[in-house]
């Protein structure tokens, strides 16, 4: 059995970001940071997909994370990236802990639709709130790192390095989780729940834990996106946002913990290219790409890297 070289890969990626980031143009640094945020959400979504539960409501936690960061910025003037991400993670995880008692009982399409309903209820609640700016949302104060606001020319690079560090740490933790007995239950649950129960493990508990971890990752992603874009609005909880995450999840496949980030980058690239080449029909271009990905790469883009060489 080949040893899993993922930690080395993570280290290499971090080194590449730190070194290569100095040479990349500003707009690309921005896109990479957003890819980190989206990748975090999709990483969590992948954990659930491995267990056979496709959540159409990850946007709920993404939005909770974003509004936590926004709330800290607006009410307390806290603009530190690390504090915001930590707070976003915590509130999202707490919400998932509570909701998980309800959601862990559902499977398949019903899990997806109930998660969608909860996300839309949250959307409705924010839209009703005029203090939160309703559908216009509000802006966040400029990001600081450990109390320091980087100079204008260095902001994007500094934020990317900080984001990448936190993200890769989260990815490493996820990778460790997937090697624990609890983490390995996912595909087993997808295959046959009854056998898992007979083995002595609790399916409900495993799903609840996966759900909380996925929410925590989504909350972190939301806080990061909020502070990078500088603006939050209720649409972050709308079902089309969840749909985008599922799109990226399908594109990247569940083959590796690094796959979601590759998927998010490619998704961003396709989006921009579609906008550039066909501003009047970019939806059609995206639809065609999604179709092609499902038909020709059913295991996601990552399967391109893991084709086993048959003798």
């Amino acid at each position, binding site marked *: 059995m080949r040893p899993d070289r993922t930690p080395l890969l993570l280290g290499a990626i971090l080194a590449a970001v730190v070194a290569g980031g100095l040479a990349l143009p500003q707009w690309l640094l921005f896109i990479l940071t957003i890819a980190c945020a989206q990748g975090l959400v999709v990483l969590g979504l992948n954990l659930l997909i491995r267990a056979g539960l496709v959540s159409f409501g990850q946007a709920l936690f993404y939005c909770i994370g974003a509004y936590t960061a926004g709330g800290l910025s607006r009410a307390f003037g806290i603009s530190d990236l690390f504090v915001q991400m930590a707070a976003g993670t915590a509130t999202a995880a707490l919400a998932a802990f509570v909701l998980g008692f309800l959601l862990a009982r559902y499977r398949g399409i019903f899990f997806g639709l109930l998660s969608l309903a909860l996300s839309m209820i949250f959307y409705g609640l924010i839209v009703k709130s005029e203090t939160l*700016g309703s559908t*216009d949302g*509000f*802006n966040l104060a400029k990001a600081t790192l450990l109390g320091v606001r980087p100079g204008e020319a260095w902001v994007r690079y500094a934020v990317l390095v900080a984001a990448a560090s936190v993200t890769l740490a989260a990815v490493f933790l996820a990778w460790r989780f997937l090697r624990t007995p609890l983490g390995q239950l996912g595909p087993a649950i997808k295959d046959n729940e009854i056998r898992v129960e007979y083995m002595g493990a609790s399916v409900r508990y495993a799903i609840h834990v996966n759900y909380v971890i996925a929410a925590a990752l989504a909350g972190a992603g939301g806080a990061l996106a909020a502070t990078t874009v*500088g603006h939050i609005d209720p649409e972050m909880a709308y079902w089309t946002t969840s749909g985008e995450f599922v799109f990226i999840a399908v594109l990247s496949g569940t083959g590796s913990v690094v796959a979601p980030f590759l998927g998010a980058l490619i998704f961003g690239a396709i989006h921009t290219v579609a906008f550039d080449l066909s501003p009047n029909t970019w939806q059609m271009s995206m639809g065609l790409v999604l179709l092609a990905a499902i038909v020709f790469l059913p295991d996601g883009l990552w399967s391109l890297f893991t084709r086993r060489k048959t003798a």
Partner: protein
Amino acid sequence: MEGLKKVAVAGVIAAALAPLGAFAQQPVKVGFVMFLSGPAASPFGVPAKNAADFVVDELNAGKGPAPYGKVGFGGSKIEMVAIDEAGPTTSVVTEYRNLVQRSNVDLVIGYISSGSCLAIAPVAEELKKFTNFFDCGTPRIFEDASYKYVFRTSPTATMDSVGAAFFVRDTKGKVKSIAGVNQNYAWGQDSWGDFEASMKQLDPGVEVKTSQMPKLFAGQYNAEISSLLGTGADVIHSSFWDGDLEAFILQASPRGLFDKRTVILTTGETAMHKLAAQIPDGTVLGARGPFGPYAPDNAYNRWFAKGFEARFQAPPNYASYQMAQAILGVKAAWEKAMAANGGKRPTNEEVGAALEHLAFDGPGGHVRMAIGKGHQAIMETAYGMTRNVGGKLTMVDVKRYPAETVNPPEGVKSADWIKGGFKK
């Protein structure tokens, strides 16, 4: 050998001078951002893009009416880079950054959605790129913060609802009750909030019967119409637009909602042409300012309205007027900056300084960049009632309200201004 040397010297001089000449003639790359897909494309985005196409082509041919006669901006042709505003805020901001940092546009004119404007404003400041918002309703942009590179050459949505309240006072006197049906998102909530507050100022005894807030794009309004009919309110206010507006008119008219009461449609002008047969007489229509049927008969409007209709077989609506005004305002500022710096191509900072506190004229009339520290425009507004004259929908009983009466003064927030009794 002598001849060859001469040619070589001439060649070197020409090569040295060429960049100078090329620089003067180098086009101005302008990024245009508006909705080209989704529900906001048909009433706003596409008419605005059409207006941009028309105005840019006319200016590039030097056919603008005086004082806009120079080619393009100060002699340099305008090169349009148009992108779609559709998508979540993250994508809108990403595409703005791409427009500025990858496509390297010289300046940006765009944005229809208030959410986009709020998100883009700080980014424009960060990237130090001159950005002119041509639409957006919310007054929050310049009330919540100050900007150096961000401008808006159209008035805010506050004046729509305040003007509507004044119109009710002037044509109906004191009314007993009002009701509203607005879309349940920031635009609808703010429009109704402004109207309700204004009416309470002008008519403290007025009763608010109900405020219906259906979901955006709900499309089916039978229940809301029944509720409005049941309350018996004298005045009904709606800021519906596009598909929702048209569905509402189609569903409400046969049920008699427009009979025996005044219905105000603050953005009704966009439905005026296509739904002329369905809009009953006596309906109050707004055009978000002196646009469309309320536009003055000046040289600019004659040039714009006739040319636009000839090219696109449809009259320009208020989104088109706002876009035309935005381009002309930037041109005026650009050329003013050029005159101040000795004819050189102006920097973003110089154009910005020139546009601050500028007053200029366009197809909608006089525009003054008077509030928001000189970054936010004010204009007069107008309201009228519909009447079907020989098959054509015309506006009668038109009342115009000067800019200072329907816009808050410098430094005062719109909500506070209304609550304070519209003090100048």
